[in-house]
């Protein structure tokens, strides 16, 4: 007798205990006991899995060629456990019949064949709610009416949360509306539907923006205004969004929840998207950069409900997102399960991923005010202070970067002016700085002071740029600066020192005083003659 008779225990108890049994013979005996008793499938599987792990030698013997007369019944049982191909099993069965023809062996092979064929005939997994399947666990979502509740609910439309700042739509809101329009046009055509793009505006005095939402692609706009909503706050924003799209009832919103939702992957948008999708009992694909709607073939039994079967899900929003390295993409799908829906299919979208569409001033649509009372307790968190960050400086997008270093030290303000004047000659150019300038104690006049920020720093602890032309004036070329610019197509350095480090990685090296060279460069470029400057310097 084995130490434990499985028929005396229920499954939840057996799981952890069986993991500790390492003796093959003992497991075999337990298996026999279970099969002789109730023969509960999950228990049999559990013991068989353990057996396989313990014996560990299920490879090595090829079932097609093995000499069955040399094998014990247990060997055969072990061997066929790993075979899923009915034909191979038939062959094994035939050979057993021709050989020793043992009843125990044949019955096992036959049972395995039956099991496989049965599976093929749509053996749907019996559904039991998680509380029943795992009584030993607590089930914190039990009281969430929507979690296991909603099956085959009705979902329509794409809802887009349009974030605003200082009373205006931010660009990513426009980008999402444009993308939503495109997606839903395609959707309506493919599925012969007439679902819409719904824009959501929440804030203080946002009604004015409704027209703009229509112009960028919304069919409907739902807004909620309240002066207490002038800044983003988690509780009221989440409650309002969820109420609008799930509980609130203007005539057209006669469905359970939205089919799709989009949020911007901004600081606030990330927070809101997670809270809303959680409250709506669905999932979220965060920080996406690509979206399309397509059918998807899925074989995961958790989704299909039937092992071995693959099923086609229609109208699936494919949400592409970069992984953390930024080099690879995953496509995330949010798909219903047999006993639980996962809608809305929701994503947050990285700003700049999509084009801002042309605004269509003629666009028409409906605008609705979500006019409900907001309980005071939603506002128990107060925003006491806030700060407005400056717009970042992005040097990377420029054709030309004019960078200044500590060579401007004699007359810092003048040096900055000369740099800025040169920047102005080019169409797409901006000003970069070495760290040496930013951390200096130079006193700049106010009109150039605003440029002296870490945002313009090029190098290891600043930005990395590769413009077509990098002009480095008064920069020595320290390694930490070099790594931020040496991939530039053409590097021109201006330096009084005949062998500053930067010489080694410059294409043109102008030995001279930047206070003289920069104005001449600017002038020559205005006249369209770079060559004259270089020649002029050589003459000196």
């Amino acid at each position: 007798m084995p130490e434990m008779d499985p028929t005396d225990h229920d499954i939840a108890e057996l799981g952890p205990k069986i993991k500790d049994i390492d003796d093959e013979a003992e497991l075999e005996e337990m298996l026999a006991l279970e099969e002789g008793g109730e023969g509960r499938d999950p228990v049999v599987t559990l013991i068989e899995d353990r057996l396989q792990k313990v014996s560990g030698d299920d490879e090595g013997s090829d079932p097609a060629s093995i000499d069955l007369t040399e094998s014990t019944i247990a060997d055969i049982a072990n061997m066929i456990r790993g075979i899923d191909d009915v034909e191979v099993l038939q062959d094994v069965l035939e050979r057993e019949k021709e050989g020793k023809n043992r009843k125990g062996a044949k019955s096992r092979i036959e049972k395995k064949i039956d099991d496989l064929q049965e599976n093929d005939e749509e053996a749907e997994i019996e559904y039991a709610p998680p509380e029943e399947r795992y009584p030993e666990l607590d089930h914190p979502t039990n009281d969430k009416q929507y979690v296991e509740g909603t099956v085959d609910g009705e979902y329509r439309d794409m809802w887009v949360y349009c974030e605003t700042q200082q009373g205006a739509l931010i660009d990513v809101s426009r980008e999402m509306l444009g993308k939503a329009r495109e997606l839903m046009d395609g959707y309506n055509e493919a599925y012969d539907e007439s679902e819409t793009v719904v824009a959501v505006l929440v804030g203080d005095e946002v009604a004015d923006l409704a027209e703009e939402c229509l112009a960028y692609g919304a069919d409907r706009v739902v807004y909620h205004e309240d002066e207490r909503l002038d800044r983003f706050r988690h509780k009221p924003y989440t409650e309002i969004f969820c109420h609008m799209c799930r509980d609130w009832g203007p005539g057209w919103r006669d469905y359970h929840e939205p089919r799709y939702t989009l949020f911007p992957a901004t600081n606030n948008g990330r927070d809101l998207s997670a809270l809303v999708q959680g409250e709506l009992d669905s999932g979220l694909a965060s920080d996406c950069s690509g979206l399309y709607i397509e059918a998807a073939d899925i074989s995961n039994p958790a989704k299909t409900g039937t092992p071995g079967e693959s099923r086609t899900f229609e109208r699936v929003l494919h949400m592409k997102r970069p992984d953390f390295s930024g080099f690879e993409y995953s496509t995330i799908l949010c798909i219903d399960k047999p006993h639980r829906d996962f809608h809305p299919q929701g994503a947050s979208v990285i700003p700049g991923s999509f084009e801002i569409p042309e605004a269509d001033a003629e666009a028409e649509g409906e605008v609705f005010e979500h006019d409900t009372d907001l309980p005071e307790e939603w506002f128990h968190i107060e925003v006491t202070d806030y700060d407005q960050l400056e717009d970042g400086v992005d040097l990377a997008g420029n054709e030309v970067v004019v960078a200044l270093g500590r060579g401007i030290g004699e007359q810092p303000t003048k040096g900055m002016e000369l740099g800025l004047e040169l920047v102005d000659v080019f169409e797409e150019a901006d000003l970069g700085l070495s760290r040496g300038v930013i951390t200096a104690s130079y006193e700049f006049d106010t009109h150039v002071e605003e440029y002296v920020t870490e945002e313009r720093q090029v190098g290891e602890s600043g930005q990395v740029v590769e413009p077509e032309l990098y002009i480095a004036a008064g920069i020595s070329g320290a390694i930490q600066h070099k790594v931020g610019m040496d991939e530039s197509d053409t590097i021109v350095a201006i330096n009084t020192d005949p062998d500053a480090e930067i010489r080694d990685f410059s294409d043109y090296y102008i030995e001279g005083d930047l206070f003289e060279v920069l104005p001449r460069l600017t002038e020559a470029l205005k006249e369209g003659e770079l060559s004259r400057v270089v020649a002029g310097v050589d003459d000196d």
Partner: protein
Amino acid sequence: MTDEYEHFEAVVVGAGPGGAAAAATLAEQGVETLVLERGVDAGSKNVSGGLIYAEKSASYTIDSVFDGFREEASERPVSEYYIHNLAGGKVKTLDLSTIHHHDTEWCDAVLRRKMDSWLAERVHEKCSETGGGLLTDVRVNGLLREDGDIVGVTCDEIDPIRADVILAADGVNSELAREAGLMDWDDPDEWFQGVKAVVDMDPDAIDERFGVDPDDGVAHLFSGDLFEGVRGGGFLYTNEDSLSIGTVFHLDSLAERRAEPHELLDALLTHPLLDRWLDGEYEEREYAAKLVPDSKKAANPSPHRGRLLLVGDAAGQMQAQGPIIKGMNHAVTAGGLAAEAFIEARTRGDTDVAGDLYERKLVDEGVMAKLRPRRYRMTRRLSENRLATKVAGCLVDSLLGRTGMKLLDGVVERAFNSPFLLGMVPDTRTSYVTVPRVLGETLGERIEAENDIEPPDLADRIGGLTYDVGDPHIELLDESHEASGTAVTACPVSAEDFGGGCYRSETVERNGDTRQVVSLDTQPCVECGTCAVVADTHWEHPAGGNGVEFRDG
């Protein structure tokens, strides 16, 4: 409120030799001990020359606390010890082995990253058994107080921690010692500045050029006229496959003379004498620097306040015995004694007396006598006064002095080898510069070799270090040249006319008025602590895991 914080019996701040010895001793007696270290790895912030001594007279040595230390964590044993007095192309070499071996059980060269990280593993093992352990990347930023009493520590990265005893083994520039009012960073004459290069060298080349066995090593010290009159000297120690070459100068002298530490190091590296070992090859692995307290002036005789006990450099327990630098060994002894004091106090049921017991042990075990010799205190007043220095200098310089010196050849060597006399040596130019120079000039042999190696410039030295820069940890309070200008030269990674350093001289013009100022960028900072003393700054260590990371140390 503070009850909610996690509590340990003992918190040890810093995992250098002092902290490691303290924590291991505590943990072995079952004291629940947590060690907090700001580096990414123990040792990643630490610099020594470094010869670690095991003194016969010490109650704790590194190998008595950590089994297998010498086999696993150190470089070569150092059995020979020479000092070279240099003057005008001549050298007079003295054998200081007698003083080196005096009271010495053994002495090994070490590299701190390897040593401290090895220690840290043992410490973590031992402390884990008590329910504590060692946490890296955590910087302690202050003392937790309750009704004014010290009850724990606060950190940048984790919640405050309460403890029955706090052992601050956080090294030179201890923020905790400063906060408790036990140490100040005001007076440059209480400190040395150590600067060091680790130089790659094949083990076979070391054996051959230094004439040592593969498992043996040597120490060479340098003094004389190669350092522009700055008081201090140079050292060269043999490691397994590298050399540690560096300088140690009195900070006040360095500041006063506006000397550039990296240039002084280069003066040593390029001195013709070194050619016999470098042989025209020079591959610098790492450049590093750190302040070193001078126990004669800085060691606090009562290094505790409430539950806070200071150990090692944090308490100024770093003994400069002539050219011999003993900091690590005293940190170990003090760590052991502080731990012992707490354990005793706990047995008595009154952990509050740990500090007093520790103070007494430092005296009873003879540590204080080594750190603050009475002889020095007596001679100092006399010979450090300028007039006396001058007179003595003239005397030595005079014909009489020189003739005397000649006659004394042999006696000098004996004098240098006397711990008694060395303990008395006053910190004047006479002893650091004049005597060695005269020795060299009078008794020296001419050096024939040429040394044409080229050490890397500062920019390359900075570029070779690893940094994880965070927020600036030093704030320049007064940017005027008068208040902070000294840092431009004294900072080991800054220099006049170098734009890539921490401190840079600048001229600013406002309303036609020109001023000399300095600006500060902490990115290349090696956290040596110099500008905390010589400039007007608010000085803190960077947050845990940030700042410079030494690979050799």
